[in-house]
């Protein structure tokens, strides 16, 4: 097994009267165990120039990580929009199946557990067709 950790820190000194400081570290394990995840896509970088809906992680494939990521297994997804923030109006909408999860603006990242399984694609739609660069990585069992 391997030991992989994901640490988060959210801080603000002025969003409330008292400082906000949230930190947490998760060790990435297989479903329901203390055994560390041993597989990953590695960190990938992809450039896109389309405003159309695009599949980033395809759960419909019969092999590869799609076959390994199912509801009964553990998988974590990291995605970052590498673009500059620009004027703040350009973003990438991240979807799971057809549900719009949220918008990643330039520099934003997200990290979430991925249920996977049939039809559970991770998709994105850029707000325009200028070039967008995403980095992503999947950890799975």
């Amino acid at each position, binding site marked *: 097994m391997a030991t992989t950790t994901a640490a988060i820190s959210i*801080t603000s000194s002025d*969003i409330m009267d008292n400082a906000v400081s949230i930190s947490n570290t998760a060790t990435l394990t297989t479903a329901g165990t203390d055994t560390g995840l041993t597989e990953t896509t590695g960190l990938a970088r992809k450039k896109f120039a389309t405003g159309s809906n695009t599949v980033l992680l395809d759960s419909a494939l019969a092999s590869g990580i799609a076959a390994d990521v199912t509801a009964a297994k553990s998988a974590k997804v990291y995605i970052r929009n590498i673009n500059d923030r620009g004027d703040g109006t350009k973003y990438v909408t991240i979807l799971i199946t057809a549900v719009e999860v949220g918008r*990643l603006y330039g520099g934003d990242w997200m990290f979430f*557990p991925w249920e996977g399984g049939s039809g559970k694609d991770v998709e994105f739609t850029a707000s325009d067709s200028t070039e967008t660069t995403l980095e992503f990585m999947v950890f799975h069992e």
Partner: protein
Amino acid sequence: MATTTASITLTSSDLLSDSLALSATTTLYDDSTTATGLTQCAVGSVKVHVTGGSFDLIPALASAEDQTQYVYIANKNTTAANYVLISMYNEIIGRLYAGDWMFIPWNAYDPGGDDSSKNDIEVQALVGGPQVVEYAVFTETSATNLDASGD
């Protein structure tokens, strides 16, 4: 405005043939701005019991169209087999096992009105005893980010 940052660090010395050390930091801004920080937040901790149903952890709002929101959720349980399902608009995002956390941008807009449950972030415990789930939501300031009274 306020300045709020979110950082992630992914590390492993033995997952790959070389060490993994990935870090990223973002500052949380309003939609369509370059320097206006989010100014509203809510932080909570709840115990999620196994009941056979799911609960609205963070309700979506009719006033949240085209706004920026970010959500942090952590399962503070310590029993490895225990998990909660995190869903959005009845679409399962994934399972947060004991000790896991997630951080996502969130489309908090409820096109059907505050109580139509569209885009609510929901939580359900399926196994184990009550699981402590902590959460924080950071939102921009152009509307009152509260569920309207009367429901």
